[in-house]
């Protein structure tokens, strides 16, 4: 029964094809990126020499950094899926369908969209594999065959992504109420307590302790575990403190706002600082690590520590890895923003229509939603980068003097990442314009 109803509902709604295409594209990009990164990483795990472990650890870190925005994207796609069926799902509830049935439909749809997107993503990863194969590690191109994942992994990938989307959908739908009267996001934005900051400081101190003691780790497995603990701890802290900081800044912005767009943007962040954080939080760790690694690589490079060819190659490879990870992370955030924005716009179509009637220019509405994303994004990415620079202060200063190119490269990549997210916002503008158009009738 559910399959038959799902098929009936699989027609474009009032929002056009964008709400269907966006999650498919998003999952496609995610799968392609994962396949590419995993493909590249598998090469490192075929090496057995002295420096192989360093490459393997760095590859694992890059994968972890990319998984965070991926999970956020999955939830966003699921929420969009539920919302684009707004009236239809509500009607089903009105006709007597149980919440479980309706949720199953929404989860099924998210999974199908994810599967279709993932298949496209796998094909896309195969298409770009020759280009990826040209990337140099250890002074030579990786080669196309080395970066293509085994066939059984490629076949399993769409199923795995669909399963992940289903899991994300179940979690994402906890924030959506599908009642007989409509689908709405739950309006619960609990106040965030400053105690979060204290807990955060404690965890950072612990993480610092772990990284300081990392030299005592003899076994590789212990080293990786300690790294993961320090890494995971810092990620958890960022998730704990991030929303609190966003709320603090948005409160000040709302108080100072002089234009409608600034006021709307700040209030929109204050509506749910956690949601604002979920959207952009993924880049926090990436920015932090990019500066951290950028300074280190720059200094080692300039100091000539890597006198031997192998060390020089390692530094060069770390720089390449940073660039790939940062761009990949921002690309995922851009997809997440695109999907979230489409969902939010559809959810508020009535409001946008009424604002258009009041004479509010679409440019003002667009500026407000752009600012509501870009402000937390800039705060998160630049803030994390600055914190990393401050933590390493003397070294950052030295690197800036003796190896400026390394830091300039990191800054340029971060700027490009912000630009990618901005593009994600631009592509969803037609959804806003359509939502604000007067209703027919």
């Amino acid at each position: 029964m559910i399959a038959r109803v799902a098929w009936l509902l699989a027609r474009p709604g009032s929002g056009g094809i964008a709400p269907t295409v966006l999650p498919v594209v998003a999952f496609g990009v995610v799968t392609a990126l994962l396949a590419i990164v995993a493909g590249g990483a598998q090469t490192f795990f075929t090496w057995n020499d002295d420096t192989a472990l360093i490459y393997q650890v760095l590859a694992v870190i890059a994968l972890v950094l990319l998984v965070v925005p991926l999970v956020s994207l999955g939830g966003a796609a699921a929420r969009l899926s539920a919302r684009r069926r707004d009236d239809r799902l509500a009607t089903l509830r009105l006709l007597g369908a149980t919440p479980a049935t309706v949720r199953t439909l929404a989860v099924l749809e998210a999974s199908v969209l994810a599967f279709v997107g993932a298949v496209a993503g796998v094909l896309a990863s195969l298409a770009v594999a020759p280009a990826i194969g040209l990337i140099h590690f250890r002074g030579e191109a990786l080669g196309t065959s080395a970066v293509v994942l085994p066939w059984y992994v490629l076949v399993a990938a769409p199923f795995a992504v669909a399963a992940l989307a289903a899991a994300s959908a179940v979690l994402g739908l906890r924030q959506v109420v599908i009642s007989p009267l409509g689908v709405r996001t739950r309006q619960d934005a609990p106040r965030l307590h400053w105690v979060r900051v204290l807990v955060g400081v404690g965890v950072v101190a612990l993480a610092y302790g772990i990284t300081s003691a990392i030299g005592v780790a003899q076994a590789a497995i212990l080293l990786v575990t300690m790294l993961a603990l320090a890494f995971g701890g810092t990620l958890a802290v960022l998730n704990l403190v991030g929303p609190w900081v966003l709320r603090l800044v948005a409160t000040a912005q709302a108080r100072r706002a002089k234009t409608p767009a600034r006021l709307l943007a700040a209030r929109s962040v204050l509506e749910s600082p956690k949601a604002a954080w979920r959207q952009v939080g993924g880049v926090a760790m990436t920015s932090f690590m990019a500066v951290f690694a950028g300074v280190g690589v720059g200094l080692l490079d300039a100091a000539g520590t890597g006198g031997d060819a192998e060390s020089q190659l390692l530094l060069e490879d770390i720089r390449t890895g940073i660039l790939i990870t940062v761009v990949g992370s921002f690309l995922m955030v851009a997809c997440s923003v695109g999907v979230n924005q489409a969902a939010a716009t559809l959810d508020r179509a009535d409001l946008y229509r009424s604002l258009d009637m009041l004479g509010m220019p679409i440019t003002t509405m667009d500026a407000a939603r752009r600012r509501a994303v870009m402000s937390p994004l800039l705060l998160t990415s630049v803030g994390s980068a600055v914190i990393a620079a401050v933590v390493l202060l003397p070294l950052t200063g030295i690197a800036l003097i003796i190896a400026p190119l390394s830091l300039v490269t990191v800054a340029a990549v971060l700027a490009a990442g912000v630009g990618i997210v901005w593009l994600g916002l631009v592509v969803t503008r037609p959804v806003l314009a359509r939502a604000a158009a007067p209703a027919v009738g």
Partner: protein
Amino acid sequence: MSSYVIEASGLSKSFGSTTALAGVDLSVRTGESLAIMGASGSGKTTLLHCLAGITAPDTGTVGFRSGAGAVVVTGLSERERSRLRREAFGFVFQQGLLIPELTAIENVALALMLNGMPRPAAEGYARGWLAALGLAGMEERRIGQLSGGQAQRVAIARAQVTGASVVFADEPTGALDSHTSAEVMTALLDSTTGQGRTLVVVTHDAEVAARCSRIVDMRDGRIVGERLRRSPEAEVTA
């Protein structure tokens, strides 16, 4: 000089094969309260949208006259119509359609800020209108923290704060109980016709319509009847 603030003639509008308006002529007098009644699908909301410059009719013209002069609304570009709506008209909708994340005072002040007024001044005017509508002390509440009637009064304040000469209301009491509905209509009439402004209300509620000075009835995209409140016997059929 004409005493009409809005004059529409020969308005027609179709959506695909559905005819929403089929040659409507209507004049709205300055300072009157006009109720447009009709069953669902009769074309009353489309007529309101055409009069307010929200929707462009397929044929026909809409003229608007104010102290600043006369304009042909149907001859304006999309951008010019947006500006006209922002500066000269006010709107009240069935659900209020206020911005939920903003406070009451911010919702009202926003209408003035869109016209370029600095925020402190805009909030000053907004505070005055909220107080006049019985919402003093509730300025910092968000919309979700207000009752339906209170939210609708915030919407009325938003419609009035710009000094709009015409307020368009689409089923303004549709989501309210009868007692609150009467209160909201009183607030709406006092703040519009009570101050020499014009009110155009789309409603299917006879009690709401009965409080307006003139009622036009619509069916199948045409005006089929017109009544004056003070002289119900003077009913005419178009």
